[in-house]
Every structure is written in C-alpha cells, then in structure tokens.
C-alpha cells in the first residue's frame, strides 16, 4: 500500500446522462441537508456516492462524488455488523478501535467513528478512500459521512448489505 499515490478520477457522473458503465442504484436522504440530492451509483467496478448541493460560497449548484471499489463493500458491511454494532464481549470492536481500514485493489479504505456526524453531537461514521482526492478540494481522502441512525433506523445498512450480497453473487 502506498497512500501517497492518488488514483486517477473516475470522472464525474452526470445523473441526466448516464454512460454505459454507470448504473443508478438508490438515493440517500439526509434530513439535515434536505436540499442535497445524494444518489448511489455503480460505475465500472466502483460504488460511487454522488451529491448535488447548493454552494453557499459559489452561489451555484455543484456536485462531488466519492468512489469506493465494489470489492470493499462486503468488508464495509461486515465491519458495521460484526465490529461497530456488536458488543465487545461478542467479538465487536473495543472502544480503542475507532478506525478500521483495509486495502482493496491498491486503495486504502477505512471506516472511522465520528462524534459529530453531519450535525453537532450526532454520532456516526466516516467511510474514506485514502487514495482518491475530492473533486472539489483536490485533497485526499474522499469521505462519505453517515449518521448512525441512517444506517440502522433508516435502513441504509440493509441497502448496502443487499448490494454487497449481489456483488458477491456476481449479480451487480
């Protein structure tokens, strides 16, 4: 692993004109960012989280996306289910394990716990790719913030698990 190597961008998805290797999967609703349009796509062998948002600085609609190898998806789901959401005495992560990471296809993927995820004092997670830079800031990593309640109560983890199962079955 060499996290200094920044991978070439996959290229920004245009939701109105998907390319042949791009496929819309589902949308994600952030209640605290109600005006944002967050959609999840498959692009080649990557899972892409694409966001359209209103930039208060540019005074314009902008978009950005985070890219994760699909091969990392089963691991991400497994870490949520068997590390972060499982008690320590049943094999879950201890309080000292707040950052889990693994390399996939030369890209370092991680999940970090967050004290303030999308809002102050709202616990959640940050899924990151150390080998890809933000399309906006041009600085790595690419990061996807997900409040804990969205994963559990709002069913996002179940959606990701379904995708991971399909990927492992060769159906994605």
């Amino acid at each position, binding site marked *: 692993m060499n996290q200094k190597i920044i991978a070439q961008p996959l290229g920004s998805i245009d939701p109105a004109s998907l390319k042949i290797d791009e496929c819309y999967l589902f949308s994600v609703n952030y209640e605290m960012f*109600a005006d944002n349009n967050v959609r999840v796509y498959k692009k080649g062998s990557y899972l892409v989280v694409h966001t359209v948002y209103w930039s208060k600085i540019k005074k314009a609609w902008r978009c950005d996306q985070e890219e994760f190898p699909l091969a990392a998806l089963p691991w991400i789901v497994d870490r949520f289910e068997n590390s972060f959401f499982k008690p320590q005495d049943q094999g879950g992560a201890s309080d000292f394990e707040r950052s889990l990471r693994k390399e996939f296809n030369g890209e370092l993927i*991680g999940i970090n716990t967050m004290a303030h995820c999308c809002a102050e004092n709202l616990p959640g997670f940050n899924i990151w790719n150390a080998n890809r830079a933000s399309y906006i800031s041009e600085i790595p990593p690419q990061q996807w913030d997900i409040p804990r309640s969205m994963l559990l109560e709002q069913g996002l983890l179940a959606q990701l698990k379904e995708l991971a199962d399909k990927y492992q079955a060769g159906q994605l």
Partner: protein
Amino acid sequence: MFPLYIPTHFSEHYQVLVAGGAEMFPSGEVVSTTDAARLFSIVTHELTIPVEQWRGVLMRLGISIPAHFFHAADIYHEVVKLCLRGQLRLVKIPRLEQFSVIAAGDGWGYCFMRSSQPHPSLSYLSINIASVKDADVILNKIKSTDKELYRSIHNNPSLAGLLKDESNIRARLAELLANKEVQVYKVPVRGAAPTVKAVEYLPATAADKPVPLAPETKASPAVTNATSTEQPGPKSLADCAQCLGDARKKLDAEGYTAKYTDAQQLQKVQEGAVSKERFLVSFQTKSTNPDTKLAFERDSGLAPVWATSFDQLENADTDPQLIADILGTPYDPSKEYVLHIIDRGETFNQFGQNTLIPTWDNMQEPTQKYLGGKHDPAVLAEVMTPEYQRQYTKDIEQYHAVDLNEFDKNDQKDYAETLSTKDREKFLARHNVRTEIGANSEFTGNGLTQSREGSTHYGVVETLTLENNPPSITKMSNVKTIALKPRGLV
C-alpha cells in the same frame, strides 16, 4: 420593525430573526443551525408560542409559508427545517439574573448588559440614562475600586469585549451607557446561602442532559493559595455518597475550599493520574428519559463523554451552582441538575477504558491512531498544536462569517477550496479531528477548566472518554445518580 421575542417556559427568551437580519441583542447566544435535536427541543418544548401562531411569525418575518403547514407535527418540522437551512435564526437571551451583579453596598446592585434594546423580561426595567452625567451618578454609587469593577465587568460575557482594560473604565462605561450601547438594571444582591437538607439520591431512571465542560478561553499564571492533603479515596459508590455528605457539612461550616491548588492541578495534568481514577462524575441537567446515555441525549451511542473524576469535584459537594462555577460551565437556576457518579471498576472494565485528559500532547496519540491512515501524519502532528489552533480559530471565524455549516462535508470542501493547497490540507485534517473526536476551535488543550468560583484559577482536570457503544444509564448498574440541590433551598 420591533424585534420579535418569544418567551420560554423557563423565563428566558428567544429572539427570532430572518436570515441576514440584524441581531438586536448582541449578548444573546445564537443557537447553532446544525443541531437538529436541540432545535426541535427548543421549538416544541421551550418556546411558549402556540403552534398555530408560527404562521403569523413567518409572515411577519417575510418568510414564505411552506406548502405543508397545517398540522402541528408538520409545522414544527418545517420550522426546524427553516432553522437548519439558516433561513430562520434563534438567539437565546439569558435571564437577567444570570449576569454578574456589582454590589452597591445597600443590598442592591447593578447588572450591566450589552444591548441597545431593553431586556425582554418584564421583571426589571432598565435605568433611563440620557447622558454621561446620568451615567456618572449611577457609577458613583458603586463603591468598588476600578480594578474590582473591571474584574466584575470582565466576568460578564456580554461586556468583556467592549472594555479592553481597566484604565478609564468608569469613563468608558459611562460613554457606553449614554450611547445606549449598554443597559443597566438595579437588582437585589443575593445574600449568603443558608444550609440545606441532606443529599437526595435518585434511581438511575432519572436521567439527564449532558453539560459539557467549558473550554478555557484564556491562559494565566496559576495561583497557589490553597492547601490540601491527600486522603484515601472511596472504594465504592456508597463511599462516594458518604464523602459527599461529609463535604456538605464542611461546606456549610467552613465554606468552599478547593481540594487542590492550581499548581497541584497542573501537576495532575502532567501526571495523567485523573484519567486513571476509578470514579468519574458527569454533571448534567435532569430529565426523565429512561433511555438517556452518559454521552448525549441521542438514540444511539458512539460519542465522547466529557467529565472529570469524583476526587476532583468532591469538595464542591452537591451544590449545582458551585459545581457549574468550578466546571466553568453555564448554570441555569431554573433547571434541575444531577450528578452521575460512574464506577469504572477496579480494572476499569465497566466503563471508560479509552479515557484521557484532553491536552495537546495527549490528543496526539488518538489523532495519529484514528486519522493517520487518511491524513499525512506530519500534517496531523502540526495541526494539533496551540500554534496551529490560532490559525484554525481564524479559519472557523471566517467559515461562520460566510454562514457555512461546520458539520457539512460539502461546506468544508468549498471552504478549503478558497485556501492554498498547503493550508487546505491542514484545515481539512484539523477539522476531521474536530468532527471525529471533538476538539473544536475553542479547545485550549491544557486539560483544565477555568473556574468562576474565584479561589483558584483552574477548576478541575477534565477527562475525555471515547465510547463506541455506551448503554443507557438505566442499564448501567455502576452509576449512582444524585439530585443536586442548591444551598439556598431547604
């Protein structure tokens, strides 16, 4: 247009403003537009306005009525959404009694507040001052020296920034009063508090809202004017309760004496012993939600607990105002407070294995460990220092000035884009620490709170516990919850 104030059930007020509207009460606290849970609590529980009147409020402020604005749940939801989007702002106006009072020597005193508008409370009327001469008449009734006056004024957060030093403080204050930039109220001075009945213990079902320990805002030399002796510590929660009972008797008889001097507290920070003590305490406002956790009033865990050790607070007994003063955190006499004592177990296996004293040095290890994979370790080391903190504070001021949300990744990237490549790397790394662990732009990293109690400069040594999945308090058999009663009540 007259400012729009809405009273709360607790005799406080909120000023309601439209985006970009001028705040009429600069001493008020602007409510964060990112804390959805708090906004919802304010709108549904604190504000006394009937739900159907929100339509009139929005019309008066020139805000378009949202499409679904008929049923109570929809109205509350839409009002919170307007706040989250920044279209509606809430400014909390503190109660007059919460500001420091400067005694005039006759059982009355004067309370100064920064505002061109009278306080919305009808309990007291401000003294009408039309000229510097009128102001001088009032100020001459204050017998304290200029130095004492400056110290009192400096403890008043609404005025601290207006009066830079103690030279010509009376002349400057008179000028501010005559210009109506500051209002003055004559209020009774609270006498010494009488004794109170013994400690009352609550079952663990009476839970709470956490009161975070306040970060220190200004460094100054420690004083060493108190003495203390090391006593053997408690061995159980029952021992802790007994210690508090003893402390109340001593407090009534002798008044408060800090258990440790400032020099001893600084030594304790260096030694790190406080984070290794068996009993921790968390000072919180009382609620009756049985699912409340030590960390935050949320439906799930994964949040840091800012607390201190039982030993650090023991001499403060069970007086909530005294505890708040020592913790350097705001105190609201209209609210009820509790103290949770947490037994971590002899081997710390019951709670808080991952506990540290949040100093710059101590924050380096978790920062590198948790964020080292995605940010350059050298950059992380550089940004978790007091030197970079000054730059980060400036960045966050600028960030807020353009109305960006600290917890919105897209706002963070947009802001970073305005910086040079080197600076944006530092900013994004430092801000990641803020959102993942919690050290914000006011974090001073000396591990101590700044006391308002007066006998010492520092209050307590803080502890920060990082818990991935804390259970609710009702399910923690290792927690004793104590109802705190002010010394003035019987």
